[in-house]
């Protein structure tokens, strides 16, 4: 038997919001499945947003849960978490990480905006992926067309930027964007927007910042 207080269900405008209590991942997952099996008709066809609290989940864990839920006719569309690891995983899997209804206030304060923290992304960010973080974002790999990187701080890409990047997303004018090769679909810092000029010749590492109220790119290499 599992503890039914582990699972809290609320109706939302666009589906169900299920909040999982504090316990090991296998335990809460099991509790969720048991709850579904008690009321299969209630869950059949539901759109589900899942608040997993501070669980740090790997993509294999989230995707296997999503497959399992789909066998009960449940569509998992959003994951809410205070763990940046889990948020990142969910974003990579194409799941939403925000829902229209605001989250409980106490969850928000735990994850206070930390401009100095950086999210480390150790691979190429591919089309359809949106990575958001309230600090800096560092990508070891490319940012492909169709991908989006949105940081409240700066964005550093050890690779090529060809997708959309937005640094200083909450208005920080001091944020910068650097990359080994900068040919973004669109680049923004705070409210300033630029699209890539037609590229001629060989690309060099560049850093883009706001200078005199405008976006300016500078070669990273002196001379």
């Amino acid at each position: 038997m599992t503890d039914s207080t582990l699972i809290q269900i609320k109706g939302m405008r666009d589906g169900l919001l299920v909040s999982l209590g504090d316990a090991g991942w296998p335990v809460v997952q099991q509790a969720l499945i048991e709850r579904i099996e008690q009321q299969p008709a209630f869950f059949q066809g539901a759109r589900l947003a899942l608040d997993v609290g501070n669980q740090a989940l790997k993509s294999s864990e989230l995707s296997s849960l999503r497959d399992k839920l789909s066998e009960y006719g449940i569509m998992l569309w959003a994951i809410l978490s205070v763990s940046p690891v889990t948020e990142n995983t969910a974003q990579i899997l194409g799941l939403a990480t925000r829902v229209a209804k605001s989250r409980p206030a106490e969850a928000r304060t735990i994850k206070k905006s930390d401009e100095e923290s950086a999210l480390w992304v150790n691979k190429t960010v591919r089309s359809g992926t949106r990575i958001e973080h309230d600090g800096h974002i560092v990508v070891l790999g490319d940012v492909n067309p169709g991908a989006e990187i949105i940081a409240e701080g700066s964005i550093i890409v050890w690779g090529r930027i060809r997708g959309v990047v937005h640094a200083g997303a909450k208005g920080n004018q001091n944020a910068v964007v650097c990359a080994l090769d900068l040919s973004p679909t669109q680049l923004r810092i705070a409210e300033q927007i630029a699209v890539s000029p037609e590229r001629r010749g060989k690309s060099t590492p560049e850093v883009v910042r706001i200078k005199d109220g405008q976006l300016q790119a500078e070669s990273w290499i002196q001379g």
Partner: protein
Amino acid sequence: MTAKVITVTSGKGGVGKTTTVANIAVALALGGKKVVCIDGDIGLRNLDVVMGLENRIVYDIVDIVEGRCRTRQAMIRDKRLPELFLIPAAQTRDKNAVSPSDMVRLCDELRPEMDWILIDSPAGIERGFRNSIAAADKILIVTNPEMSAVRDADRVIGLLEAEEKNSPSLIINRLNPNLVKRGDMLSVDDVYDLLRIEVIGIVPEDENVIVASNKGAPLSMEAKARAGQAFRNIARRLNGEEVPFLDLDSHSLWDRIGKFGWRK
């Protein structure tokens, strides 16, 4: 015998998944292997048509999953190649009639008797795609040298990476060397440069592919056709042989793979 399960998928529709499955299956069977194809495109089946087996369908995959027939009964044997089988999709049901774990169970049942299980995935990244990749040991991504198809391929590769599947391999289909030379089509290089996964096949645009599909006799059955040869080469590479690429436009590909092959 333990079969390897290969899923052919793409993101974008109409790029040549079904054509690829039919041709590789024929090529593997011509090499004496036992091959079963599974049509994962429930509701829009057409692998049976391309393989010329449509008129022999009695049971389909949903019948197997729902227990109305034994797996053997739904396997249509190709008369030209007795070691080639097809499990057709259901035409009148939707994708939710089959789940990812049904696919895993079905493949596990087939594995001991077969060398290769080839799954034809539907376009998109929804349920039918998830069903098709659930049991895959190896995933082949088909794309055309065209930006929208390449982007969708990129999206699918990202999803597979997130699920920690083995790195997929790429088939670039419908390459037209003349258009590439004129700068009017992405080259193999351009496509590789963006996707950075192993290229396992480059198939030229070839009208005989369409003629063959309409006849229900995949082109890889014909010794001379160039696209057929490209598909046969893919089959050989799947068998672990090293086969050079046809001389289309790929001369600089090897330099790049040499340089960048280690990159993620």
